[in-house]
């Protein structure tokens, strides 16, 4: 059996904020359908790394190839790549002036030129999938945090992405809401979506991750299957970190 195609390939990625070297020689390959979990201490560059993938941050050295397209600072590739990647943020970032439904139909109508009726129909499907179809006419601020995050996931799905990036999707949520959001992500994973998720929910990592990546000070320290990673981390740094959060 041939291996699934490479969805994301990062080679020798380096990034600086002014003088500050945030990402150092990052190499990473994610294949179609694989799920990666990234963890590590605060400030280690996890967000910066996944934001480089859809060019919310620009890197200075190395290359990122998404679904066969080289990531560039500008131009057609950038738009194509962004339309293949859905991103979910820690702070939801829903558009507060639009209803839940409008949040989900905005880009399909504007960007993909879908007729409104069709866009609304697909949006409702995605909203039903994350379990909030009945809230479609409400405004985001009228929903709970967990519901908002699920809307954000539905919205990201409306552009029909091949890859989903999650940046700490549950760290702004109360414990009982974490579960409902993680369940949605687990289901998405079960459907075969390729995803990279920055999270410290180790139970989740154990359940869905093909690989857990541990980052520290801008470097990938370990990349291993979850069983191996949790059982015996190779480096003292990751061991210390794990003893903190487990």
């Amino acid at each position: 059996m041939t291996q699934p195609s490479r969805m994301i390939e990062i080679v020798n990625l380096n990034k600086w904020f002014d003088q500050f070297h945030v990402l150092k020689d990052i190499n990473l390959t994610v294949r179609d359908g694989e799920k990666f979990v990234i963890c590590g201490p605060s400030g280690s560059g996890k967000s910066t790394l996944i934001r480089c993938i859809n060019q919310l941050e620009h890197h200075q050295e190395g290359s990122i190839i998404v679904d066969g397209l080289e990531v560039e600072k500008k131009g057609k590739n950038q738009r194509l790549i962004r339309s293949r990647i859905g991103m979910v943020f820690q702070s939801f970032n829903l558009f507060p002036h639009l209803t839940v439904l409008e949040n989900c139909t905005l880009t399909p109508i504007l960007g993909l030129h879908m007729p409104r009726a069709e866009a609304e129909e697909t949006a409702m499907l995605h909203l039903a999938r994350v379990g909030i179809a009945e809230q479609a006419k409400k405004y985001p601020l009228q929903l709970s945090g967990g519901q908002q995050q699920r809307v954000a996931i539905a919205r990201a799905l409306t552009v029909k992405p091949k890859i989903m990036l999650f940046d700490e999707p549950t760290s702004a949520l109360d414990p009982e809401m974490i579960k409902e959001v993680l369940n949605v992500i687990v289901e998405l994973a079960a459907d075969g979506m390729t995803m990279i998720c920055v999270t410290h929910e180790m139970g989740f990592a154990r359940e869905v991750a093909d690989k857990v990546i541990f980052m520290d000070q801008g470097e990938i320290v370990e990349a291993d299957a979850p069983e191996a990673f949790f059982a015996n981390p190779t480096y003292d740094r990751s061991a210390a970190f794990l003893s903190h959060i487990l």
Partner: protein
Amino acid sequence: MAQQTQVFVPQPDRPPPPDTSGPLAWIRRNLFRDIPNTLMTFVGAYIIFTVVTAIVNWALIDAVWQAETRRECLDAVGRAGACWPGVAAWFENLIYGLYPKDQVWRINLGFLALVVWMVPLWLPKVASKIAIGLSAVMLYPFLASYFFLGGEKGIIWTALIAAGLAGLIWVWATALTEMRTGKPVGTWLVARLGQADTDEILQRRIKQGAALALFAMAFLMVTQISFEEVRTRFWGGLFLTLVISGIGITFSLPAGILLALGRRSKMPVISTLCTLFIELFRSVPLITILFMFNTMLPLFMPAGTEVNQLVRAIVAVCLFAAAYMAEVIRGGLQAIPSGQYEAAKSLGMNYWQTTSQVVLPQALKIMIPTIVGNFIGLFKDTTLVSIIGLFDLMNMARAVGEDTDWLGLFIEPFFVVTLIYFVFCFAMSSYSINLEKKLAAGRDRT
């Protein structure tokens, strides 16, 4: 140690303690709480009473209503009462300036057209409010300027006026079909012709054809009417004030938005130019700008072209207002968290899509009070055009006291002008509060 669980029985509601609710309690609590409070209430009531009686006595009870000259007023009541006949004699001038009396109906009709244009914005069930508002901003000015100016019209001028007329007709057609069938007039027409299920290209052709027919009809109508020319030097009074501030207000918002976006642009040339423009116009008083434009603009124009004085004043007011509005809008833009831009980018939206769909709607909503505050400020600032010799409402009021019959009659016209300004500004301010409430309804968890 078995603990008996008890059934919770809620207490029945009790009335609040006496003297804490109702109007009497409110009066006691707020006006007569203790001795200093009671004293303040009496002092305040006394001041209000004196001022109000003084004004009522002067303006109504002791006032003179019939006289030919100010002399007669003074002989009758001295300075104790207002002399209204002077204001009455000049009233038309206060409103219309020196516009020919037999043509004044054109001004009324012009403003009526604006009201008619805007009415659908307040009708429920009309969905195309943005398109209607935009058409009013872009097309109404052509219609109005022909009503007000009149005179010869070449082919281009005729076409523009026809576009204005066609716009007005379209607005009402759409308002009516949307109220009755929920469809804008173009879609309604397509449905009426039984083409609702045909492909989009044919449907678009039908709409374009209808628009063209409407325009042709409007064009024919415009060629049939002709108004005699009224030069702008006869314009004045409230009419002139409304023209200058109306143009200033409608120009300042879009121009301010563009300048603010330009100032935040990543392209250094654009952002430097916008910043320079904004800072230049914001650091110079409006009077100075008016003077500059009045005396210097003609120097820059090619020899032989004459720029009308009103145009100079309007250009000055517009640029000044745009610079101020730009800073207001920039404040609104800064209030939008970066997460909104990132979310839009990650969904693949481009700059203009993000700006028009995500950023501006939120920024403008936050800034409504300040934006309307700016409009009110601009409306009042137009009084400064009197400095370069235009007879706006304020200057016209001053002219009353310089008339030989009414020499020295200043207080009464200014009193009336004050009332007029108050009515307009208060209306704008109330409307903004109303708009804020409407936009806030249901959108926030409050």
